[in-house]
């Protein structure tokens, strides 16, 4: 069957058997091997990708079902070649990985969480990554990495100190009511 997929902003067409999972299609047909093959039945979370921004298991979807979605893999997160996204960088800084097998799934899941919640509590983070299994870190540093990324994103999005006050002064003097 022919299917058109939108992967990391690019339209691609591929001929697949209906039984081929989105995960295998990403890895074998598009050579996007950052989505990892773990349990292949939806338990481990290593194959997590974003579908329209929401974390989903690419092993629990056939490629033929995936047309019309914006699919984001770990390869699509970095702002430019050789750079890291804020979350990826936070995982490095806080040692949020050891063997790295679960990392793409963890990073994408964290991205999705921080996209709609910039002040997640520890519980929110634990709940969000509860479907991603890590056998190395004990999760402590992963949770810290997500907290760290959230902090950086908040600071990056906040107006620089002084800008707010200046804006207020301007309005009060400018007489705009």
């Amino acid at each position, binding site marked *: 069957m022919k299917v058109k997929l939108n992967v990391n902003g690019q339209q691609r067409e591929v001929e697949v058997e*209906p039984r081929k999972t989105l995960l295998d299609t990403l890895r074998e047909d598009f050579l996007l091997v950052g989505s990892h093959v773990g349990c292949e039945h939806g338990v481990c*979370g290593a194959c997590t990708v974003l579908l329209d921004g929401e974390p989903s298991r690419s092993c*629990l979807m056939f490629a033929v079902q995936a047309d019309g979605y914006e699919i984001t893999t770990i390869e699509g997160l970095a702002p430019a070649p050789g750079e890291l996204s804020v979350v990826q960088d936070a995982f490095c800084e806080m040692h949020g990985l050891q063997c790295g097998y679960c990392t793409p799934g963890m990073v994408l*899941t964290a991205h999705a969480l921080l996209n709609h919640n910039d002040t997640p509590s520890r519980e929110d983070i634990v709940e969000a990554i509860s479907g991603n299994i890590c056998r190395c870190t004990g999760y402590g540093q992963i949770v810290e990495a997500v907290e760290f990324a959230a902090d950086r994103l908040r600071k990056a999005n906040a107006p620089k100190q002084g800008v707010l006050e200046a804006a207020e002064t301007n309005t009060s003097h400018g007489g705009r009511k």
Partner: protein
Amino acid sequence: MKPAPFEYVRPDSLAEACGILAADEDARVIAGGQTLIPMLAMRLARPTKLVDILRLKELKGIRSEDGAIVFGAVTRQVEVERSEEVHRRLPLLIKALRWVGHPPTRNRGTVGGSIAHADPSAEIPLVAVTLGAEIEIANPSGRTKVPADEFFIGPMLTSVMPGDCVCAVHFPVWSHARVGTGFHEVSARQSDFAFVAAAAQVALDENGRCIEAALGLGGVGDRASRVDVSALVGKEVDHVAIADVVRAGTQDIEASSDLHATAAYRRRVAAVFGTRALEDAFADARSQGGMVQ
């Protein structure tokens, strides 16, 4: 861990889907695929055809009716979690949903899929049985509604016949002013299959007397079941009354044994969690000052 070959079809209407299902009894419906695809991967299921209904508009969405909320079969679980209306009118379903899989599987998994799959430990079927929901089924000759209690027959076994497709689930909404809910579950890991799950919903009048009470148990036997707690109705209920009623109601309950838990364990936990769920529900109802919905 690769599925056996199958044919994939995406019909344009429910009628067309039912036609395909009626013509081939080995065809299976797929929606979110969060339980079916693992079964295909492990080759526990080997359908000839997968009939994808996920994009059928007529099966989408949450509709509010008088005395009920109707979920189109392909409504994703995450959409239910995000619905303000469901939070307000069906809080028991919201409490149960956080136990359904993980956030990523709830992003894809559907209400109708969980119902049609009929896992004895699944939470959405448990709430359906507890509240007496109705399952709407479409087939080539029309639509019928089946009470949850008759729909679920056994593990992964429902009253769905070849040519049938679950098209909506009707959850009744209690109109009383003070409604409280409680949900308790135990499993090996967060969001794994429940060994025992208990769901309770109660309503109180303005004097704190119980007007209506429902308790359901999942994971214990081969399907979710209701426990008779009608003895609580008309009374000002206290801890002792709840414990007595639940003990009596769960004494001879059918329970299954497996690697994870024995029947005796399940029965004992069922009594404890049934009590806790009801206590939570009464506390929840008491905390509501009689606001009209």
